[in-house]
Each structure stands twice: as C-alpha cells, then as structure tokens.
C-alpha cells in the first residue's frame, strides 16, 4: 500500500527516465535530504557531526568509488586506500606549494591525480581478471604506501612523515565548526552520488555492466573493452581520491601514509559487499553499517561498564561485529541494498500480501 504506484502514469519519456520513477521514492528522498541538510545540523551535537556522520559520508564516497569498479564493472580491486592516499597527498601538496589555490579546486585535482594513477594501475585489467587482478591492484596498494613513506617530497620533508592539512577557507569563510564541515562533506558527497547514479544509468554505466556480466559478449556487441575498463578505473579512482582528500582535510585534518594501508582497502571492500554490489544506495548503507556498528557496540557496552572489564568490552566488540557480518551475509548475500528492496516489495502489497 505504501509503494503502490497505481495511478502514476508516465506520459513523457523524461518521466520514464527519471532517477526515481515512483512518487513515494521522490517524497522519501526529499525528506531524507531535508533531514540530512537541515534537521541534523540543527539538532545533532558536535560528537555526532564530527566523529560519526562525517566519516560515514567520506567512507560512503569511497565505497561508491569502489562500487563503480567492483560492483558495476566487475573488476575486483584491493587498491582503494592507495587511491585515497593519492587524493589526500595530491591535495596537500597542491595546497602547500600553491597556497593561492582554493581548497575545492585542490579536491578536484586530488580526484584527477587519483584518476591518473588509477588508469595506470588499471592497465593490467586489460589482460587479467578476477582474483589475479585483485593481486595486481594490491601492488598499487603497497607501492603507493611505500612511495609516500620514502619520498620526502610528498610529505614536504616532514620529519615524522605525517602531513597536516592547511586550514580550509573559501571566500573568507573558514570551515572550522563541526556543522560547516559536515555540510561541506554532505554537499560534495550528495552531488557526487547523484552524478554516480546518473552515470550508471547512462550508456557508460550500461557498458560497465555489460563488461561485468560477460566481457566477450560485450566486445561482440561493440563495446570497446579497453576504454570501458579504463574509464571505470578512472572514475572509481576519482571518487576515491576525493574521498581521501576529504578524509585528510575535513575529517582528521592530518594524514600519514599508514592510515591508508591494505586494511583500509579491505574495510571499504567489506562496505561494498555488505551494502550491496552494484548499488549506490548500498554504498551508503554499507559505510554506515561498518562505521557505526563498532561505535554503537562500544557505546552500548559502556552502559554495562562497571560489570565488564575494559578489555572484555574491547574484545566483545570484535566478536559481535564479526558475528553480525556473518549473519547478514548468510541471510542476505546480496547486501543491505537488496534487503531494502525486499522491504519495498513487501510494503507494496502490505497489508494484504496474498
């Protein structure tokens, strides 16, 4: 009953091609945007904005990036964190060496730099597939981490190898408060998410999916494999690069190469898998799940603080987190996005499912 589309006629091609063809979805998204843009900044405290919601958004962006590559194009990558690192360090170096550049421009440059590196490390995908490609992208992961640790130029010869992001000002306004940083991240992430959503519905996105489903067949119907795979790497890395710059600038304000190690790559891969491969919504859900759940468990176990030792709580977090991941994957291997789809289907018939 909630999702009944009876009576909603599509009278134009534009209506048929809309991102959200059902009115209920449009209303839902509008409410969600109002909540995210207005209600949350008004009511959430600094803790939530700064250390919970901002990283969720940044990870969502990185997960969208990986989802484009792995979920839509079917190219398994373990180099996501490295592309984030490229973005973070590119933005930092541009800002330090050319301080006149507004930071938003340096975010774009961060994306472009990451895209360039992504194309370079995407070249092996033309010859190898699947797990072998994952191993090849692992090389990117280790090489880039090594490069940023060992070549002093990238960290501006900082003795500790940790870079500190310069302050962010735009037209005289300084992005210092938690609200401004959250809104900045939200604007960038929302804008890029809409772009991604449109991209995957376009000819390019369909070419990606064709390559994912069967690359020989895709080639046979006239899709240029090289261009398609490399654009997927470029676009994916662009998203990861911007996410890396946001991580360094907006969230932590500092970054060291080890922050983007292989574990971070795995973390983002898990977000994509748990959220749902080949789904933009899934990227958000997966990021929220992976970031929020440990915080939630830590907070919840704090309520029993006196009964349990700190050590037990710390380990309990791992046990519950791991258990829940397994549970979710067993019950719904297609991820949280698929779960949401099931809910929608159920709500369509509710309350008369038979």
């Amino acid at each position, binding site marked *: 009953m909630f999702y009944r589309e009876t009576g909603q006629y599509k009278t134009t091609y534009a209506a048929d091609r809309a991102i959200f063809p059902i009115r209920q979805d449009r209303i839902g998204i509008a409410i969600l945007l109002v909540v995210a843009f207005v209600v949350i900044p008004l009511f959430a405290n*600094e*803790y*939530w904005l*700064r*250390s*919970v919601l901002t*990283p969720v958004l940044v990870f969502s962006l990185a997960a969208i990036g990986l989802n484009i590559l792995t979920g839509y194009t079917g190219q398994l990558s373990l180099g996501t964190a490295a592309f984030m690192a490229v973005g973070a360090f590119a933005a930092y170096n541009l800002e*330090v060496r050319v301080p006149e550049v507004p930071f938003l421009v340096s975010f774009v440059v961060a994306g472009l730099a990451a895209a360039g590196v992504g194309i370079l490390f995407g070249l092996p995908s033309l010859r190898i597939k699947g797990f072998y490609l994952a191993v090849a992208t692992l090389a990117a992961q280790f090489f880039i981490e090594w490069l940023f*640790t060992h070549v002093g130029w990238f*960290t*501006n010869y900082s*003795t*500790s*190898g*940790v870079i*500190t992001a*310069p*302050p962010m000002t735009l037209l005289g306004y300084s992005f*210092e408060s938690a609200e401004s940083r959250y809104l900045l991240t939200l604007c960038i992430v929302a804008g890029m998410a809409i772009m991604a959503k449109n991209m995957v519905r376009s000819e390019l996105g369909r070419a990606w999916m064709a390559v994912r489903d069967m690359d020989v067949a895709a080639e046979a119907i006239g899709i240029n494999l090289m261009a398609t795979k490399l654009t997927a790497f470029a676009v994916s890395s662009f998203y990861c690069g911007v996410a890396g710059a946001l991580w360094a600038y907006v*969230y*932590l*304000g*500092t970054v*060291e*190469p*080890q*922050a983007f190690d292989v574990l971070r790559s795995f973390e983002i891969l898990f977000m994509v898998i748990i959220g749902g491969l080949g789904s933009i919504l899934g990227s958000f859900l997966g990021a929220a799940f992976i970031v*929020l*759940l*440990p*915080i*939630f468990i*830590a*907070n*919840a176990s*704090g*309520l029993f*603080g006196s009964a349990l*030792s*700190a*050590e037990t*709580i*710390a*380990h309990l*977090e*791992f046990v519950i987190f791991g258990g829940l991941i397994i*549970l*979710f994957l067993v*019950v*719904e291997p297609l991820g949280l996005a698929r*779960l949401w789809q*099931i*809910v929608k289907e159920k709500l369509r018939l509710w309350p008369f499912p038979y």
Partner: protein
Amino acid sequence: MHKCLLVALAALVLAGPVPAVAQDQSGDGAEQFIPITSYRTGPYAVGGIPFMDGFVDYLKMINARDGGIEGVRIVWEECETAYKPDRFVECYERLKNRGERGASVFNPLGTPLTYAVIDRLPADKIPLITLGYGRTDASDGRVFPYVFPLMVNYWSQNTAKIRYIASLEGGLENLDGLKIANVHHDSAYGKETAPVLAKQAERYGFEVRHFPVVHPGIDQKAVWLNVRRYRPDYVILRGWGVMNQTALKEAARVGVPADKIVGVWWSCAEQDTVPAGDAAVGYTCSTFHNNGTDFQLMQDIITHVHDAGDGTGPREAVGTGFYNRGVINAFVTVEAIRTAMGEFGARALGGEEVRWGIENMELTDADIAAAGAANLVPPISVSCADHEGGGKVLFVRWTGESFETASDWLEPDRDLVRGMIEESAAQYAAEKGITPRTCES
C-alpha cells in the same frame, strides 16, 4: 528469517543514538574526570594492555590511599582506540565533554593518534600529554601551547643513545671513526631520528648507516646480513612490536653481540626480550623511567590495589616495562593536576586549568622522593617555551630475567635538538598560519 533480520536492524537504528546521551554526571566539584584512551585490541595490544593496566592501577591507588588528588576523587572512562587515529578521534569527541568540567587531559599513547587531534586542542582547550612519543617539535611550547611531549622526545632520546655509547667508549672524543648501524622500523616513526643522527654524526665524527626493516618485521635475515657486512661498532635498534624480538634473534645468529645493541623505549620491554631468549642477554635499551617494584609507589599499588583484589591486570605484570610506563604516565598526569589544584583550589578542574598545571609543573628530586618515586623518574621542569620538561634518559640492560640499571640518568644533546625543534615548529607555524605566542610574561 528476513523478518527477524529487518526487525533487528530497525531496533539497532532506533537504539543507536540512545547510549551516547545516556551518561550524565553530578556537578558538585568533588570528582576529577580523566579520559582514558587505550588499545587493548589490534596489532599493538601486547604493549597497550599492560600499559593501560598500570595507568588505571595508579589512579585506583590514588583513590584508595589518598581518597583522590587533594581529596578530589578521580573518575575515568576508558575508550578503545585499537591504535587507529579515526577511532581515537571518535573517542576524543565522545569523552571531551564527559565529567562535570569536561575532559581534563588526554594521553593518546601513539604518535599517529597524537597528530589526529593536535588541530582540535586549542579550540577545545584540552591539553595532551605524550610521554616519550608524539610530535617531537611540539616541545616548542610557543607554537604548541596544548601539547606536552614530556620527559624525552624521540630526538632527545636518540641523542642520549649516542652519549651512552660514548660513555662505553670512554668519552665523546672517542666516537670519532665509529661505525653505527641504525636498524629501524620502516615507517614515519622509524625514520624520524635519521636527521638528528646525521647532525650528531657531523658533530662527533662517527659514521651512520640506516637499515630499514619492513613492517611488521618477521623476516629480517637479509637486513642483518647487510648489518654484518657493514661491521658496525654499535647498532641502534629503533623497532616496534614483533620486530624487536626477531631483530635480537637475527643479530645473535649473524654474530652481532647483544651488548652492542642499543634500543629505543618501544623496544625496551619484557615482551621484546623474553621471546628472544638467550639472544637478548646483555641487550641495552633506553627508557625514561626505572623498572621493577622496588619503589614505595609500586609497593603502594600492590598493597592498595592488588592486595585489595582490585588489580586491573595480572599481578605479575607489575614492575614490567610497559606497566611501569603506564604508572609513570598516570603519575605525571596526577602531579600536573595537583599542581593546577595548588593554583585553582582542590576541586574538579577543566582542560585549560590542567594545561596551566602541566606547564607550571616542577618536580624536583625531593618532590619525587616524597611521592615515593625516587629514582623511578627523573626530575621534570616544564615551562612555557619548553614543553619537554628537561627529562633525562636511563639505560637498562636485560639480564635474562629482568632489566637492570646500566647507566646514570644521562643528559641528551639538548642544544642540538632544541635548534632542530624550533626550526621544525616554525615550519609548522608557517604552514598553519599560527603566530607563536611569546613566553616572557
């Protein structure tokens, strides 16, 4: 099955925000809140667990023996960081407004964690104590008013190692012509002392070569063969975690004697030497505190905490390297708060007041002896410009069963280090657009 999952998920979403706001504290000024960020999980938990046990045990002891600091009971909350900067930021934000006056002072126990919050401190007015680690150039208090790398920073400590080698060789003039191998963890942390070694090599005329060990350092055969080929007179071990024990074993295998190896304090605990077995006997490393339980303060912990059945960890850990470091960290934190209470009165203090306390902390040998810590820690004297506090470095030798004292409290090359610190701090101030405060008032 799906239905159960959906209900569980919905419950999780709805219950999520509840715990974060559920905590509230009474506000009568009778409880001093100290936030604790620990890592009892993750790759460095081996050191993190005894460290945190020591920290918490000391606070428990102060509450049990003295009824708190100057009669103000200490309360604390522990938050798990797993040694991840992002988790630490989450903990920092979660704890910074807890307690009736907010968080008093953070001890992050990790260099990357320190960096992650440095920018936030001035706005939140919360000080950071980084005892023996952290951002070295934060020793310049003019640029970093809220950061205190107390006792000895990495550079000072490393210069003291050269001075220790000189004492073995019979004087600084005998360093000329020595060959020193710097075997270091291949990370930002490991490479941090390279510039200061280069300066010292220039000043004293020794030769230094660097041997990076890839993290985590389980396989070091090739590295130590190269070290052997170099035939160094001394080896500086700047290791971390599992790398240390492997290094000691490999050194013994290629015939580098353990008594020619001088380690950093991250390589200076039972967790590093015991697994290496006989290979570690004679190995020396630098610390900023003494080990063992032969101190009044450690005995008080055993009596008031462990004998009362309130020990945080196993009793055997008391007196070991990491445990004592945790105790020292808590000791310095408590003494800083005590100093601040002398100025602002015996009540719960906020971050800015505790910052004043750390900056004006002066612990002479007599003060330390009165606190039952004679010879456990060196005297500290912090000032507005010098946030390191002029600590000294002690060298301890592994006998196969415990660490014995191998040197006096040695002075680092303070003049050399201070110049580099001011240079580096000035670069940071320029990058961030900070005007250093003047320290004359």
